[in-house]
């Protein structure tokens, strides 16, 4: 009986992740439009896009191999799998032990790996360029992420998300410098990982600047829909992951309806706030030249390292 409602919660969470992710993306876009003084298409716009793409036919390049067609499913699937382990509304996810935070990141990495391959599959210059740049950015973000994780897992004495979140919520609400540094680092990393300004600009197709878009340039129809959706989920998950690591307060520990409701409420608020922060950063900054990115990510790495050092020196 107990396991049954665990399964229920698990399924609920997955559904939430899949369903809410576009909305969050829409919310961020909406904020962006407001801050830039444009009229927005509303929170639901991403849903419309996805729906539109699903009904469209697929136009496939002649020399596309199975990798090209398989990648969208993998991107979507891996995102969903990670979605099943991040504590968003409840701390009792029975699938959570199957992947700790490092594994989560690695699953995203394998999705990226295939996306890069897909980019090279058609054999156009753009695809290759996108793949190359994407892998370059990834290889620079990787150390920063790991340092951030290192910090939180030092503080939480674990790499499993549940235990990190638990250990923070159980303790009193104290401001730990290491965690702050780590949080900043993680924020920068999220920007880089999800391809947002100043690292990448998702809303442009200008050859010289695009990274992520260049890889998926040849996609269309349901494939494109899956990829878009997948990356929205990925974006959402990165944010929730950050929330679970750095401000987990409010996530339901006991899973009765009341607590879950509360945690949903808190989660919505947190998401809105974080989205706001992201938007402020995005609109505040301009897109960087590709080789300026090293400095950006170096800063992220530095922050994370400071977090580790702070942990040992100050705590």
């Amino acid at each position, binding site marked *: 009986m107990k396991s049954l409602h665990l399964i229920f919660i698990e399924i609920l969470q997955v559904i939430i992740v899949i369903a809410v992710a576009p909305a969050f993306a829409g919310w961020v876009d909406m904020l962006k439009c407001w801050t830039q003084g444009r009229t927005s298409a509303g929170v639901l716009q991403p849903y419309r896009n996805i729906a539109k793409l699903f009904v469209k036919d697929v136009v496939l390049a002649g020399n596309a191999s*199975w990798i090209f067609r398989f990648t969208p*499913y993998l991107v979507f699937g891996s995102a969903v799998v990670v979605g099943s382990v991040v504590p968003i509304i409840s701390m009792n996810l029975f699938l959570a*032990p*199957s992947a*700790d935070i490092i*594994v989560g990141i690695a699953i995203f990495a394998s999705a990226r790996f295939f996306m890069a391959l897909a980019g090279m599959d058609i054999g156009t210059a753009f695809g290759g360029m996108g*793949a190359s740049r994407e*892998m370059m950015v990834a290889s620079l973000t990787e150390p920063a992420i790991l340092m951030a994780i290192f910090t939180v897992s030092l503080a939480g004495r674990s790499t499993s998300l549940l235990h990190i979140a638990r250990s923070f919520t159980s303790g009193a609400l104290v401001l730990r410098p290491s965690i702050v540094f780590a949080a900043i680092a993680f924020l920068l990393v999220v920007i880089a990982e999800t391809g947002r300004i100043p690292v990448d600009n998702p809303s442009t197709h200008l050859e010289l600047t695009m990274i992520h878009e260049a890889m998926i340039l040849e996609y269309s129809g349901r494939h494109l829909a899956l990829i878009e959706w997948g990356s929205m989920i990925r974006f959402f998950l990165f944010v929730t992951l950050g929330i679970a690591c750095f401000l987990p307060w409010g996530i339901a520990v006991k899973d009765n309806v009341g607590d879950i409701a509360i945690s949903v409420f808190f989660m919505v608020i947190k998401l809105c706030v974080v989205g706001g922060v992201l938007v402020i950063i995005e609109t505040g900054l301009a897109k960087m030249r590709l080789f300026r990115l090293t400095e950006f990510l170096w800063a992220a790495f530095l922050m994370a390292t400071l977090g580790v050092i702070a942990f040992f020196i100050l705590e």
Partner: protein
Amino acid sequence: MISPIELSTFSVVAFIIPILFVIVIGDNRRLLIRMSFSVSALASLVSVAAGILAVAGGGIEQVVLPIGLPTLPFHLRLDELSGFFIFVVGLLSFFVSIYSVGYVGGLGAGKPVKRLIVFYNIFIAAMFMVCLADDALFFLVAWEVMAAASYFLVMFEDGRSENRRAAYIYMVMAHIGAVLILLSFGVMAGFTTGFEGYTFDAMREARFPLKWATVAFLLSFFGFAAKAGVIPFHVWLPEAHPVAPSNVSALMSGVMLKTAIYGIIRITFDIIKVFPWWWGTMVLVLGLISAVMGVLYALMQHDLKKLLAYHSVENIGIILIGIGLSMIFTSFHLPTMAALALIAGLYHTMNHAMFKGLLFMGAGAVLHATHERNMDEMGGLIHHMPWTSAFFLVGCISISALPPFNGFVSEWLTFQAFLLSPSMPIPLMKLLIPLGAALLALTGALAAACFVKVFGVIFLGNWRGHDNHAVTEAGWSMRAGMSLTSLACLCLGILPAVVIGWMDVISERLLKAKLVTTSGVYGWMWLTPVDPERASYSGPLVLIGIVAVCAVTYLLLHVKPGSISKVPVWDCGFKKLTAKMQYNAVSFSMPFRRIFGFLFDIKEQIRLAPQRGHLAFPVNSHYYLRVRDRFWGWLYRPVIDIVVLLSRKTGMLQHGRIHVYLIYSFVTIIVLLALL
């Protein structure tokens, strides 16, 4: 019931049979190849069994052979550690032997296949003997035989001067390494007595003063490092691996380097046992350097096998990271953590053997199909060789440390070991070791980038080569070998709990500590190295999850599938889309060259032939790039120069004038008398 050590000895002896075949049926080439390699495969399989039993059964078995010096006969010993390595060596050589039937069969008629077969078998047998040896003399004999056999295998095509050069560099470095190891044995035997003192048992008993222990350790470590290709002793690898036949380079890179790891573990943990923490730190640092530099050098290559060779440097580095951490933990008396690190290292040893073997086999298949080692001449092979490309992809994913394949597991374990570093008593270490973890992460990401490049450039896109000759899929035996290896990669990836449950007796023997591997009833599903609270990974669930979601989405989307129209690539309107416009290996790695260029000796120039003195519209342009290893200039060139200089000086002695010679002996007498 035949005991494991007898089994393994038997398998070693069995490797003589193929050599006999060469003598008996040497003329019938086809038959010879089939029979000899199948025998090698069987023999390897036997030793795999021996290895499994030895580890599973636990306990130590020793045998003293009737051969060797009368006062120092050869001692054999099979314990968990050697059993594990025999298992690894045997497994890969089993796969590779299957693969070789097709690969060697496909070699040109002029190639000296007999030589290949003879030394191939000697080589494998020697690797087993290295793992079995239990006294300094036999160990070195096996070690050097291994080196010599592989040298002849590298010199397989001795017609080309580059091959000779590569083989030469390899042999010289191997021999110097061997002499260093010999000296370290000499140091350790210095604290024992008589001929018996050369057995490892006597050395285990001996207690070494720290000074001499350090000397012994450094000598042996650098000796083994020269074989393992630890930076800066790596220069022979990228030379030797490309020129060797691919099945041989699979073995060399897959398992021969591991014998060096075996030696390091054997001497450090089993013979010397107690050591200060800075030894481990040195190993760790060298490992990190090798890992990062190795992968960066690899990124710069466009010769497929050279690239893979540099990746061996990288992975040896990762293994050494694990071992170094384990040494540090041991010196701080933290056995459980040491056990975790050691297991991580050993697990990566096994993984690297598998996926690097797989990749080299794939490279061999590609080489066979295209007669081309330069990636920038390939492309789009996935359409011609679907199987090979699939297996190669498995190798790429594994080596890039991506779940659910095996490379990820060992890196994950290494990360967990890193995360335990805070319990070290020395603050400095606490602060510095996390940076090591960051470097490891960097290495993993760069490896992923590198293999996106490899797979993308070779198998995806369009054919870049000039002559588009028919590329055909590899033969059945090559595919069989590769498929088995990729299967092994997958199993090691999703069932780590089982494997580790099998092999952590090694850490129990060496460090007196086990891992808490399993928790709950479905133990085989959950890998929880420290404790479930701390960290956990379930390969099966992740795999099932991804597969399930992909399947569900696929089905949902195909209840009413929209039509798929295949069209040529959109060329933005102007009809000049050529294969040369694709990104190739060089252009792919350009951003990395920009970022990490300072680590290399890069010479890059673009020549433009202007049109009517107008640089904006060049008629044709030529791009030249040369990336060199800095270490050659830093380390090797000076040594060579000094040696040559000295030899010129010694030439002066043979002056040619008999009077001078007489003066020599005259002076010698005078000096000796004066010294009297």
